[in-house]
């Protein structure tokens, strides 16, 4: 399972980088979306896939968890990262829309005025 997920992570990174290198700003933003998802999936995979009990303590019990249980922290991290990624993505979409309105082109090569 982790081999499969690791391959998926690799494909996501590769696709994201390919799209970011394109001239079109729409594809650029799609690349950024994939990049943040690749990072999320990487956290999920690298923190270990556990096929055992959920990390819940039964009601009334005051003992700590014993045996192998899944690690909930990785999912908390991913959740945080998804929320942040979503917010930033919303900004990026508005930004390329405004940039398109101002520059009137979906092309990074038309946006070189500030580089020289």
């Amino acid at each position: 399972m982790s081999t499969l997920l690791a391959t998926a992570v690799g494909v996501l990174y590769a696709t994201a980088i390919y799209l970011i290198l394109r001239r079109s700003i729409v594809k650029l933003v799609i690349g950024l979306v994939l990049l943040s998802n690749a990072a999320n999936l990487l956290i999920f995979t690298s923190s270990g896939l556990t096929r055992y009990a959920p990390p819940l303590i039964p009601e009334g019990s005051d003992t700590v968890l014993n045996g192998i249980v899944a690690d909930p922290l990785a999912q908390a991290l991913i959740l945080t990262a998804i929320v942040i990624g979503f917010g930033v993505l919303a900004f990026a979409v508005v930004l390329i829309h405004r940039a398109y309105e101002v520059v009137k082109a979906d092309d990074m090569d038309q946006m070189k005025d500030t580089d020289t």
Partner: protein
Amino acid sequence: MNSAVALQTTLPILIPLISGALSLVLWRSRQLQRGISVLGTGALMIASVWLLLSVYADGIQVMYAGNWPAPFGIVLVADLLSSIMVMLTGITGLATAVYSLATISKKHEHYGYYPLMHLLLAGVNGAFLTGDIFNLYVWFEVMLVASFALLILGGERAQMEGAIKYVTLNLVSSAIFLSAIGLLYGLTGTLNMADLAVKLADHQDNPMVQVIAMLFLMAFGIKAGAFPLFFWLPASYHTPRVAVSSLFAGLLTKVGVYALFRVFTLIFPLGDSLTRDLLLGMAGATMLVGVLGAAAQFEFRRILSFHIISQIGYMLMGLALYTPLAIIGGVFYIIHHIIVKSNLFLISGLIYRLQGSYDLKQLGGVWRSHPMIGVLFLIPALSLAGLPPLSGFFGKFIVIKAGVEAQQWWLVGVALLVGLLTLYSMTKIWAEVFWKELPEGAAAPAQQRGGTSLMVITIVALSTMTVLIGVAAEPVYKLAEHTASQLLDSQAYIQSVLGVN
């Protein structure tokens, strides 16, 4: 944990958050927002001085959020480096807030300039104070989102073009940072920086550690604007309002530098590793490429932007040499640089107000009309180039002396050459803006709104600070010395956070 410590370490984050929230509530009243911005940043500066004084007196202060014990909960850790950075944020924040009163137009205020400025300061301070690597990522994002919005405030074409590059490269950097955190968590099962330092000591032979260190180097290298990852900086920093440029120039890249200092002294101590050699090379190339880029430019703020890059090189050199003296030099350089760089951007804004342009070819004759502004420019400009007795001289002197002691001759040569080229660049600005006659058909002065007295007061205050750091270099050196010994003694940091064990 007593309540004073909790208050000290959280106030630098809480004050800007509260001021930002209040500014949002009082959205309709510009006057109140302006008042809050000055009061809030003033309070932030007082709180940051309080924090620095108590850290200096009592050592590292740790705040356990929600009273969770150390490796499990999130901690805020204020050591000397953090509190110095927080204090510099307070100074820059207050200077920018006062300067903004005279330069930010009604339109920009209406778009929400003040709430965003406070949010940016909160994010920067959070990044400086946190002791948890994932929390650092979160504060980076808070800071980034605020900076994105500040960068495009006004919506001009140049801002949009600059912002696309800025946003893209910073998001790529965040993704690399997040991936590194994921791998690190998979390897060690912890996120607390002190705990990471302990756990990673058992993984010295694992090649994965080197991979993760490289990912951190790339992520923070992009944020810091180090060679060859700096291209977003000169493409975007000259596009927003000048107060925003000044705030960015003073603080944002330095958050990246701070993160490099923190990660490569605590979590991955440099020692004689491959990372150190790479960092040495990056430092030299960053200095040289930055200053050569500046030499080719004829736009005031673009020259200054390229100089940010070359100055980052000196700080990285301090870190990469990794001797006690070099770290002292790096810390001294950061203190000097933040004040000088913000000040130079503020001066470019003052000249824009007088003559209506940032293009050196359109400017001229300021020395004849306003000789005092010439003097005010010379102080930070010569300090940036490293002339004694100004602050930049001591920063460069310590770093270069450390380089000589470490026998890194080529790096020393580059550092000296870059100092000379910086002087060339500053004399270029001087000759074009101050000595040259005002050219025919120059741009009309910017639309006047209020006087320039607030701008001048801010610039005078920051220039005075530059002179003071130079004249009274010894106390600052002592402070940097304590900071360096704290950074190199990671055991003390670990013990303060995790308790004695």
